[in-house]
C-alpha cells in the first residue's frame, strides 16, 4: 500500500497510465516505510495474486517470448509484435488487444523505435532528459519525420558505439530506449516476469529486446468507456447532469474538477486477489477526520476477497453492523454529491469499473436528503424533505396500523368508517392479515418485475397489475377494497425514497406481524425495537441517528429542514475533524443577514 502512496507524489499527470509504475518495483523495495503493516499486498508475488509468471527475464528474446506465450496460453487476445530495430537487433512488443490504445502503440512506440537507428546523433547534453516526449507533444511527429527526410543521412548500422551515446549506455540499452526513444508518458523497466505480465494485463505494452534482461513497461492503456451522462437512477431537476462512469480515473477527474485544492487527496489500493481492482479513497486532507481515515484504510486492508466488481461489495465488507438492513455507507453516481460529502468531511471510496461511489460515515438522515434540496429554494427543499420523512413513516406503518385498527381496536375507528369497512368485509374468505400480506407481496413482485423488465413489456405488466389486482380481485370479492387501498398506499409511499426501499419493506412486514399479535401494542413494541436498532447502529463510530431530534439549532439546519445556505455555518457534528466544523466564517455571505 505504502508504495502506491509514495509513488503518487512522484508522478504528476493523471490518466489511465498513472498506475503504470507502482507494480514494477521489485517486491521488498519498501524503502523507509518497510516496517509499516502491509496486509496482503497484491504484488507480494504469492501464487494467488493472479500473476502466473515468476522469476526474471532471460537475455534471450526467443526464450522471453516463449515465456509470455506460455503464460498467456489459450489467450488469443495476446498480441506479439516483433520488430527489427536497426542497430539493435530483434525486439518484441507484448500487449493485449483491446486494452491498448493503438494510436499510442503505433505512433509513440513503434514509430520512434523503428526510427531510432536513423536518428541523427544528438548532443550528449540533450540526452538523459525526457525531451523526446516534450518534443513530440509540442511539435508532433511530422517534424521529426521531416527532419529525417531532409537530413537524408540514414544512420545505418545502428549498434551504438560508446562514443556516440556514452551516457545512456552506461545504464543499458533498455534505459536508453526508455529515456530517449519511447514517446509515452510513463515508461519503466522491469525484469520481473510477474510484474511484466500484470502490466500486459493492465493494458500496458511490454517491450522486450534481444540480449537484454530487462523489459520496458510502456503506458499505453486505452479502451472505450461510456460517455459521461446523467445517472438514470439519480436524476435532478436543477443541477449538474454529470454522472460517474466505469472508469476510475475519469471519475476522479470529475471530482477534481469540482474541488480544486491540493488538499484533495486520492489514495489508491488494490483489492481483490484475482480481480485486482483499483480502489481509491478520496478525502479533503484538512477537513476529514484522521481517525476515520485510518479506520477506513484498516478496514479496506483487511478485506480478503477474490473479486470486487462494484463498490457495493466493499460496503458489505466494511459495515459496522453487518446484519442490519440499513445502509451504513452512502452511495451515489453523482460527482456533485461526492464533492458535497467530501466538503462535509466525509470520505469517499471509488472503485474501478463501478460508477457508484461509496461514502462514509453515513447517517440515517441522509436517506432523506437529496441533492435537489440544495439546488432549489430552501423552503421547497425542506418541504420535500418532510414529505420524504412522511413517506417513510407511512410506508412502514400504514399496513400495521390499518390491521391493528380494524382487527383489534375497533373503538378507535370513527363509526362511519368502521361501518364501511364492515360492509366491505362481508363475506370475504381470508382474514385481513393474510389479505394484506398477499397484496403487499404482489405489489413487491410487480415492482421487482417492473425493474428488470424491458421497457416495452412494462405496459402489459401495469395493465395486468392494475386490472387484476386492483379491480377484478375486489369485484370477485377475494380481497376487500380497503386492503387494496392500504397496500397500494404503502407501496407508493415506499417509492418516495427508493434507497430505503429494502429496510422499509422489512420493517413494514415486521410491524404487520407484530400488529397481528398484539394490535397497536405490538405495533408499538415493533417501533420501540426499530428505534432501539437504529440507536445502537453506528457508522464509523458516528451514531446513526445523529442529527435527528437534536435540539441544537445548528444541528437542525440540515436534517429535517434544509436551512438556507447562509445559516449552515457548521458542518455536521462528529463527521469532520475536531475544530473544523465551521463551514462559513460568521458574517460571510448571506447578504442582508
Amino acid at each position: 500500500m505504502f508504495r502506491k502512496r509514495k509513488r503518487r507524489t512522484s508522478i504528476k499527470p493523471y490518466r489511465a497510465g498513472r498506475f503504470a509504475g507502482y507494480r514494477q518495483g521489485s517486491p521488498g523495495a519498501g524503502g523507509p516505510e518497510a516496517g509499516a503493516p502491509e496486509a496482503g499486498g497484491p504484488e507480494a508475488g504469492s501464487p494467488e495474486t493472479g500473476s502466473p509468471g515468476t522469476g526474471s527475464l532471460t537475455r534471450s528474446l526467443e526464450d522471453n517470448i516463449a515465456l509470455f506465450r506460455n503464460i498467456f496460453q489459450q489467450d488469443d487476445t495476446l498480441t506479439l509484435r516483433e520488430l527489427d530495430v536497426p542497430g539493435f537487433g530483434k525486439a518484441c512488443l507484448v500487449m493485449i488487444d483491446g486494452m491498448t490504445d493503438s494510436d499510442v502503440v503505433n505512433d509513440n512506440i513503434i514509430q520512434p523505435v523503428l526510427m531510432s537507428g536513423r536518428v541523427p546523433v544528438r548532443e550528449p547534453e540533450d540526452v538523459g532528459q525526457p525531451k523526446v516526449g516534450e518534443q513530440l507533444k509540442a511539435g508532433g511527429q511530422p517534424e521529426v519525420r521531416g527532419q529525417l527526410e531532409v537530413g537524408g543521412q540514414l544512420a545505418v548500422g545502428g549498434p551504438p558505439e560508446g562514443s556516440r551515446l556514452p551516457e545512456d549506455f552506461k545504464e543499458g540499452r533498455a534505459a536508453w530506449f526508455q529515456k530517449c526513444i519511447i514517446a509515452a508518458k510513463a515508461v519503466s523497466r522491469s525484469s520481473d516476469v510477474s510484474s511484466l505480465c500484470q502490466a500486459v494485463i493492465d493494458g500496458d505494452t511490454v517491450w522486450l529486446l534481444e540480449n537484454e534482461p530487462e523489459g520496458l513497461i510502456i503506458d499505453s492503456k486505452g479502451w472505450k468507456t461510456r460517455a459521461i451522462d446523467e445517472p438514470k437512477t439519480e436524476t435532478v431537476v436543477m443541477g449538474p447532469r454529470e454522472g460517474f462512469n466505469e472508469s476510475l480515473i475519469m471519475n476522479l477527474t470529475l471530482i477534481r474538477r469540482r474541488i480544486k485544492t491540493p488538499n484533495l487527496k486520492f489514495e489508491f489500493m488494490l483489492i481483490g486477489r484475482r480481480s485486482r481492482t483499483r480502489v481509491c479513497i478520496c478525502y479533503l486532507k484538512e477537513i476529514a477526520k484522521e481517525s476515520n481515515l485510518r479506520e477506513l484504510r484498516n478496514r479496506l486492508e483487511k478485506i480478503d476477497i477474490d473479486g470486487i466488481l462494484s463498490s457495493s461489495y466493499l460496503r458489505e465488507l466494511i459495515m459496522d453492523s453487518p446484519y442490519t438492513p440499513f445502509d451504513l455507507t452512502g452511495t451515489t453516481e453523482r460527482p456533485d454529491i461526492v464533492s458535497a460529502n467530501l466538503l462535509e468531511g466525509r470520505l469517499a471510496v471509488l472503485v474501478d469499473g463501478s460508477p457508484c461511489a461509496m461514502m462514509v460515515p453515513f447517517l440515517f438522515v441522509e436517506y432523506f436528503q437529496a441533492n435537489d434540496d440544495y439546488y432549489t429554494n430552501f423552503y421547497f427543499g425542506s418541504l420535500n424533505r418532510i414529505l420524504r420523512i412522511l413517506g417513510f413513516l407511512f410506508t412502514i406503518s400504514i399496513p400495521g396500523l390499518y390491521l391493528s385498527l380494524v382487527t383489534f381496536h375497533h373503538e378507535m375507528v370513527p363509526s362511519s368508517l368502521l361501518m364501511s369497512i364492515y360492509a366491505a368485509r362481508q363475506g370475504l374468505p381470508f382474514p385481513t392479515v393474510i389479505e394484506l400480506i398477499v397484496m403487499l407481496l404482489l405489489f413487491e413482485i410487480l415492482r421487482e418485475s417492473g425493474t428488470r423488465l424491458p421497457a416495452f413489456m412494462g405496459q402489459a405488466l401495469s395493465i395486468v397489475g392494475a386490472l387484476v389486482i386492483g379491480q377484478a380481485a375486489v369485484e370477485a370479492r377475494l380481497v376487500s377494497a380497503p386492503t387494496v387501498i392500504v397496500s397500494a398506499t404503502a407501496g407508493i409511499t415506499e417509492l418516495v425514497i427508493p434507497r430505503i426501499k429494502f429496510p422499509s419493506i422489512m420493517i413494514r412486514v415486521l410491524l404487520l406481524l407484530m400488529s397481528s399479535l398484539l394490535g397497536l401494542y405490538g405495533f408499538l413494541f415493533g417501533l420501540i425495537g426499530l428505534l432501539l436498532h437504529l440507536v445502537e447502529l453506528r457508522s464509523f463510530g458516528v451514531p446513526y441517528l445523529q442529527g435527528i431530534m437534536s435540539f441544537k439549532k445548528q444541528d437542525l439546519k440540515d436534517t429535517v429542514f434544509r436551512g438556507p445556505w447562509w445559516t449552515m455555518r457548521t458542518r455536521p457534528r462528529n463527521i469532520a475533524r475536531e475544530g473544523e466544523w465551521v463551514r462559513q466564517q460568521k458574517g460571510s455571505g448571506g447578504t442582508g443577514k
Partner: protein
Amino acid sequence: MKLPKICILLGMLLLLYGCWNYREADSLFLVTGCGLDYDFEKDRYRMTVEIAAPEGSGKNVEIKPKILSADGDTVFDAVRNIIRISSKRLYWGHAQAYIIGRNLAEKSILPLLDWIIRDAEPRETVVLYISKCETAEEIFKEKIPSSRMLAYGIYEMTTSAVSVPKAPYVQVYQLYGMLTSDTGVAYVPAVDITREGGSFTPIVTGAALLDKERLAGFLSEEDTRSLLFLRDEIKGGILPVKTGSGPMSGYLSLEIFKSSTIVTPVFQEDRMSFKVKTALEVAVGGEYEQEKYLSADQTAELENICSQFLKNKLEDFISRLKQDYGLDAVGFGEVLKRRKPGLWKEVKSNWNEETFRDIDVQMDVKVTLRNTGQYLKGL
C-alpha cells in the same frame, strides 16, 4: 451479535403465533345503542339492542338497523344472552345511546351505569337516557321507516342541543361525577316518542332528574333550559321572550351568543343565601312588534324586559325545584363545599331535605343586546 437479535424477534413471532384478541370487523355486530328494562314479573333484566346489520350480498351490502332483545339475571348476562340470538359477538365501542326504561329508573339506574363504566368496551362519553315511556324497549320497537340508526339519531339530537338548549348533554363520566358528589343529584336527558302523521319518532325532550340513583321526575323543556342557565351550561340557542300578553303578541326571540352564570354564597346574620349572577349577550333574532325597540333607549328597555323575563323564569324554576323535588340540581351545595368546606361538612347530611329548601336565592340577570340582526328598521 445482531443476527441472534433478529432471531429473537422472528423466533417469538413464528413459534408463538397466537392472536387472542384478533377479531375481524365482520365477526362482530356493531351495537349502536341499547335499552334496558326490568321485568318485575319475571325478575329479570331485559336488554334491547340496536345493531348495525349487513343486508344484501356481493357488492351491494347495506348496513341496516336491527333490533334484538334478550333477558338476563344481570345486565352483563343479558348482554351476553343476545349473542345467542345474534350469532355474532356484540361490539359496544361504537354504541352512543343507552336508554333506561322509566320503570327501572324509578328503582335504580346503577346496574347499567356500573356496567358502562366498568367494562372496557363502552366508552365514557356515551349518553344515558331515561325513557318517558314505561320501558325503553318501546322506543326501539317502534317501526322506523328509514335505514338510519335510531340510537345515533337520538344521540345526535342530544349533541345538537347545544344550539337548541332543550335537553341536557350529559355524558356518562359527568353523570358519575354528579352522582358521587355530596348532594347526589343528577340529571340526564329524557327520551319520548312523538306520534306525528302516524309514524312514531323518538325525540329527546327535557331532562330526567335523579336523586342518587333513582328517578325523581322529569323536567319540561323550559325547565331544562332554566336548569342549564343556572348550571352555566348554555352555549348558544334561542331564548323566546314574551314581552306582552295575549295570543300572538310580543314573542321575541333572542339568539344567545354568550352566557355565564356565577353562583356565590352570601352570609348575612347567620342566614345563608346564594347570589346567582347571570350575564347574557344576545341578538334580536326575530320580533313581531318591531316599531317598539329601535332607538337606543328602547334597546335598554328591551334589555330590561328580557332580563326580568329570564329572572322570573329562573326564580320560578328554583322555587319549584325546592318545593316539588327538594333536590339541589343547580349545584348550590357544590359551590358551598368549595367556598366553605367547614360549613359544608355540617350541613351536608341533610342538605337536600332541609337546608336547600330554606335558602334564599338572589337572582341578578343582565341581558345585553349585541345587535338586532341585519334589520335597522322593521316593517
